[in-house]
Every structure is written in C-alpha cells, then in structure tokens.
C-alpha cells in the first residue's frame, strides 16, 4: 500500500514537474541541443543568452504589468458579476404553498447547482480543454452537494 502510494506520488510529481523542467531546460540550452533530431534530457551546456535577450528587450516589464492587470481585473470583475448572482440564487426561497409550485424536495436550488455544475464540468473536461483543474474541482463540489 505504501509502495503504491509512493509510486503514485513519484508519477504525480514527475507528471507535474516534467513539463516545467522541459520549459526551463529549453530556455537555458543552446540551439544545438534543442534543434536536433535527438535532444538530450539533461543540458550539457547552459547559456543565459535567451534570458538576457528577453529581459533586455525592454518589453518585459510592461508585459508583466499588463498580464497582472488583466489577471487581477478579470478575476475581480468575475467576482463582481458572479457574487450577486450566487448570493441571490443561494437565498432564493421557493413558495411551496403557491398554486402550481413544485413540491418540497422537488426542484431545489442545490439540485440546480449540481445539474449546472455537472453540465459545465462535462463540457470542460474534454481533452485539450484549458480548465481541467476547474472542471475536476466542480465535479467534486457537485458530488458533495448531492
């Protein structure tokens, strides 16, 4: 059991760190090591030329600020849009005594959230989607709500 868990952790770490390692390696390897039919896994020579070129391009500070602005602004705007919607949905009380109203335990807000969550997560979890993490989070959330 412990061996299996250890192996799983190793695979998980390699799976997560592998692409990051390749990204870092490509950024510090000379072209001869990358543009070859058989690229090596460990860098034989390290060069900071490309990092210097990026940092000396004069655009990077503006780009970083713009990325930060877009990310923070986008996140805050999304919270501003979604906050009132979620609040009103969570505090919606159906009047079950009204004629034609659904029975208690029929259509409820939590069930609606579960259905919406599953539809959204189902659409997002296809291969190549950019929101795998969010999709799996939603799936787990909707599972807890049932």
């Amino acid at each position, binding site marked *: 059991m412990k061996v299996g868990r250890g192996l799983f952790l190793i695979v998980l770490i390699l799976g997560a760190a592998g692409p990051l390692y390749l990204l870092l390696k490509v950024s510090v390897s000379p072209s001869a090591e990358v543009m070859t039919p058989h690229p090596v896994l460990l860098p034989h020579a390290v060069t900071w030329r490309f990092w210097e070129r990026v940092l000396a391009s004069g655009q990077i500070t503006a780009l970083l600020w713009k990325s930060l602005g877009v990310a923070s602004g986008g996140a805050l705007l999304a919270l501003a849009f979604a906050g009132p919607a979620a609040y009103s949905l969570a505090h919606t009380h159906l009047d079950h005594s009204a004629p034609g109203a659904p029975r208690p335990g029929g259509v409820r807000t939590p069930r609606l959230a579960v259905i919406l969550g599953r539809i*959204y997560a189902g659409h997002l979890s296809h291969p190549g989607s950019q929101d795998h993490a969010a999709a799996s989070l939603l799936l787990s959330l909707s599972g807890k709500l049932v």
Partner: protein
Amino acid sequence: MADAWKVTPLVMLILLAGLQAIPRELYEAARTDGAGPWQQFWRITLPLLRPALTMAFIIRGVDAFRIFALPLALVGRHLPVLSTFAYVEYLEYGNPHTSAASSTLLLVMILMTVGAYLRLAGPEEVVQ
C-alpha cells in the same frame, strides 16, 4: 471584460457552493438576536465565504494570467500580454528559447502572485 463574462458561471458555482455550505442556523440565530440583513451579510456571510472567495480568485487569477487566444482574437497585438509574447516569439520568430524563458517568467509571476494573495488572505484560509 470578455474573459470575466466568459468565466462568470464557473465563479458563480464556486461561490454558490461556498454560500450553501454556510449553516442556516447561523442566520436564524442572528435574526433572533435582532441582526438586520446587512449585519448578517457583513458578520456571517462574508467572513464564512472568504475561503470560497479566495479559491475563486486564485483559480480565476491563474487562468487569466495565461489567456492569449482572447486578446489575440479581440484586439490583435494591441494588447500584448506575456503569453501572447511567448506565442509570437515561438510561432512567428521561431525562437523556442525566448518563448520558454518568457513562459517561465510567467510561471514565476503566477507563483508570486498566488503566494502573495495567500499570505494576504491569511494562513487559516490555506488550512481550510
């Protein structure tokens, strides 16, 4: 703005899950003690919703850091962000090294921002 609208359902569902996790008894007790709707919101809803808000902000923030298709499609190169810079460096200038370097910078920026936000939000939120 377009990106914010695009992800509003996802953020709403995260916040809705957070709101539904707040026990109703707290509101009933607050009403019994004479608390009004605003007091209930500021003293119960908002503090107990903070973990969900943190999670939504971080997921949205990380996701928004790496957008490039939307600005590229909507405004072309008039709104260059770091991810579009990496994309252009790789595809148009054929330089995977500078593209990888700028992508690594983006990763560092994301990690720093998330770390700073978690530090600001407080360690108890991380534990939750």
